[in-house]
């Protein structure tokens, strides 16, 4: 129990990632090339950004299943506004307002109306996507504007040879790391996740904190959407119907952020992202079809959950909550 050698999930995952990495390097001829490695990291950069946002809410024992919907709808709306003549700056501002609105609505429902986050965000995803699809844009795929070089730079540019999406992940990770570790807000997030009642008694403004978290997560999802639409110069609303949100959960849970809250940090997300990135990249090189990839990913997620339940066993006393077993 007290041994310092105790295996953390993060350690296992990191080792697993390394093992896969070595395995793929040895068996796949074009795996260990600079180009492939950069494309590997780039392909999971969006997942990493979303994972960092998801990690934040999960640490405080929440969850946000509406992230992908927010990402898709907010950025599609921005693109569609630009296409119909709105200056990009204004459009981005509107999109940001939309993301804040979604986050605030979710947060208020969770914190003040006491609707469990998992149901709020599940329904919020439907609401956001349905509204967006019906009122904010007409076609499935929105094209990114080509007359704004700085917008394209966000997704496709390089700084010192490193692609912008990777820089964005790094920057966001740094900010989040500082936020969680060295600010009062961050420590309060951990306190809330550990024991919300205790946090409340101590005097932490728990409700405002929850609202702030959901707004922050929503904004992070929005940022991911903007970077994504810049990187592939379009945004497909069909992404909402894909299993992306589960990939985000996979990244977070795999990395070792406990769903019981109060544990984990940015590093866990990065480790999880790395493993998923190596896996996806390897499977793509192996030419495994998309549906089979999904199957493999979800089976891995299932094992991650099982391992999580052994490493962070739930306290039976507090396992049953008013909102059910979630």
């Amino acid at each position, binding site marked *: 129990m007290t041994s310092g050698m105790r295996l953390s999930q993060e350690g296992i995952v990191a080792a697993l990632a390394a093992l896969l990495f070595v395995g793929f390097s040895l068996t796949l001829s074009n795996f260990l090339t600079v180009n492939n490695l950069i494309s590997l990291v780039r392909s999971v950069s969006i997942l990493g950004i979303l994972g960092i946002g998801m990690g934040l809410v999960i640490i405080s024992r929440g969850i946000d299943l509406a992230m992908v919907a927010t990402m898709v709808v907010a950025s599609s709306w921005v693109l569609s506004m630009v296409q119909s003549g709105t200056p990009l700056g204004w459009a981005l501002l509107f999109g940001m307002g939309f993301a804040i609105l979604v986050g605030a609505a979710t947060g208020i*429902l969770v914190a003040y*109306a*006491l*609707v*469990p986050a*998992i*149901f*709020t965000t*599940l*329904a*919020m*995803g*439907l*609401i956001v*996507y*349905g*509204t967006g*699809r*019906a009122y904010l844009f007409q076609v499935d795929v929105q094209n990114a504007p080509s007359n704004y070089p700085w917008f394209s730079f966000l997704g496709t540019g390089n700084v010192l040879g490193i692609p912008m999406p990777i820089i964005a992940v790094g920057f966001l990770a740094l900010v989040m790391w500082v936020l969680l570790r060295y600010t009062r807000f961050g420590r309060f997030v951990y306190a809330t996740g550990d024991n919300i009642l205790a946090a409340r008694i101590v005097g932490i403004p728990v409700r405002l904190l929850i609202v702030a978290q959901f707004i922050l997560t929503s904004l992070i999802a929005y940022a991911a959407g903007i970077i994504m639409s810049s990187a592939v110069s379009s945004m497909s609303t069909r992404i909402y*119907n894909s*299993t992306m949100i*589960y990939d985000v*959960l996979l990244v977070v*849970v795999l990395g070792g952020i406990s*769903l019981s809250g109060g544990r984990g940090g940015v590093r866990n997300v990065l480790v999880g992202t790395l493993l998923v990135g190596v896996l996806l990249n390897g499977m793509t090189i192996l030419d495994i079809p998309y*549906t*089979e990839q*999904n*199957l493999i990913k*979800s*089976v891995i*997620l*299932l094992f991650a*959950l*099982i391992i999580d*339940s052994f490493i962070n*066993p*739930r306290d*039976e*006393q507090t*396992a*049953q*909550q*008013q*909102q*059910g*077993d*979630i």
Partner: protein
Amino acid sequence: MFSQASLTRLRYKYLPDHLIGEVLSKRWVDNAIPFLVLLIVIAVLGPLLPNFFTLSSLSDLGRQMAEFGLIVLALAIVLLSGGIDLSVGSMFAMAVLGSLLGMNVWELPVLIVLAGVLAMGALYGLLNGVLIGYLRLRAFLTTLVTLIILRSVYVIVFLHYSTALVTGFADSALWDFIGFGTVYGFPLSLLVSGLIAIVWHIVLSRMRPGWRLTAVGGARRSAYNAGINVRRTVCLAYVWSGILCSVAGFLYAARLGSAGADTGIGMEVSALTAVVLGGNSLGGGRGSVAKAILGALLVLIITNSLISFGVPGSITSTVLGIFLIAAVFLDMRWVRNKEQLLSKSYVSPTYLNLPPPPKTTDPASPYRLNDKLRTVEVIGLGEIEGPEDVILDRHDNLYCGTRHGDIVKFFAPDYQTNEVLAHIGGHPLGMAFDKNDNLLVCIGGMGLYQVTPDGISTKVTDETNRRWTSVVDDSRLRLADDLDIAPDGRIFFSEATVRYEQEEWATDALESRGNGRIICYDPRDGSTRTVLPNLVFANGITTMRDGCSILYAESWTCSISRYYFAGPKKGRTEPVLTNLPGYPDNINRASDGNYWAALLGMRTPALDLAMTMPDFRRRMAKRVAPDFWLYPNINTGCVIKFDENGNILESLWDLGGQNHPMITSMREHKGWLYLGGVSNNRIGRYRIEGADPNWTGPASYWGDAK
């Protein structure tokens, strides 16, 4: 013309506001709200949609309901066990695919396909069940993951067989009958689902497995401590969920004969919305088949209507999302606040105007204060607790009940030794001997019991007829209080209140409504019937010497009345004593042909005034802790003797309450008066001057010993 007081009196006489609390205390009130919503939805949408009530539309709705209802039922069962199953949509899709593969591609017999599909469903459910029940994973995320896994498998298999599925053809009459057949005009699938629903209703509400399931969902830890195999119960809930979803998929496949890439997508959200909308609690432990059906109907009608209005699918899902949030929100609020609402609205005081009480300080008053009881001898001090009633048998032995649930026998002649005659469990209250020397006892919370001289106790009755006008279940005896036996053997006993338990008597005093009654048990045919309903805390009872009437006390109205159960005045009630200075309890015969009555407490001007102000008392009950309520003054009590015309002859007091603080009962025996008190730890014994030294109760009732 009407004074304020008479308006208040009329308002409390005719407005049954105690029903609000009683309705809220019913389990079916949970179903009433979604049912009302359903009626409103039908009333609003029915006229708007031209084809809503046509036969074909209803038949189509019925078939959809058969499939969707089963899925909602599956989810409701899991929810009841305290979990959640999001993989219902994928399990459903797999079953559709499996059925079509079996019928169209492999051309197997229908029953084998059905068996195979059900087995597959059980297997998916077992996967969820083992992971959640035995490995104790989180239900939401686990079933989310199995949702994706099964969906991936579905897509892979579907793409592989998609052409074969379309080109294949099922040549089976049974298969067509399942899909399109009707029995007496009802779609077959609806009948099948209805049957399954009825079976599940019986299992959940009447059988052990269902109760275990509910117990696990309601309080997992308590269920474990009660010896229920929690893990297996949880696991089985998921297995059944898988099986029910497979039945739904099978029916769907038979009806439509095809599957698409989007079959079953998003079903978990609409099923979840339906379950919660119907009133099943997310936290588990509260739910039923009826709730599931209500919710399923609601969601189905709403989505179908949106489709017929031409609303795009994305808006439909938005509406569903909004409904889901609203339903979860209401469920949270309802579960959280129901008890509070109930406790705030259950107590419902009524108007009671008592005239000013007779003065006990007046030297000419028959109630004038004295200290005659201060010098009573004390029996069994500290050995008994709560002898509400005392009684003596033919051999002068003394009996009393205790709050520990015993009947204690003190041995004549000196009452220094005692034994526990019988242990019954509830607090024994009023007692009486029948002509065979059996002791009949009213037990608070249990009913009417009989104890033989050997100490063998048997239940005589614990239920009476249910009145249709009563919302609370008044067939069970909650507070049987005192009894007496008519010469023909019929037992008349009082029940103080049907709304409260024994320890809540003070709350009933606060209400002062006619919650009590007199019940008759007839040993000749073993029947129990309520004879006098709506009495205000019916308390002491004694049969009168004419053999065809009883005297009964109503405590909170401070009155004693006479009821004729036989003879020329049969069925009539006459007041004997009204406006007593205190609250009467037990009544018993005196040796000189008159009657003794105990006053358990005295009236106070403040409480008398409060009795005319029901709103005031309601506010008191809501806002003030029970310790600070206005109570009857039970620090002082007395014994009165009166004749059958209602003249008070004598009163006996222990004013300071030093020797015998509270009196709820008294029994005359051979020149002595034996006193009991429900909160005393002793029995008092008072020498009555000039009383017949040979008179005993049993002889007075049943003649001298044979």
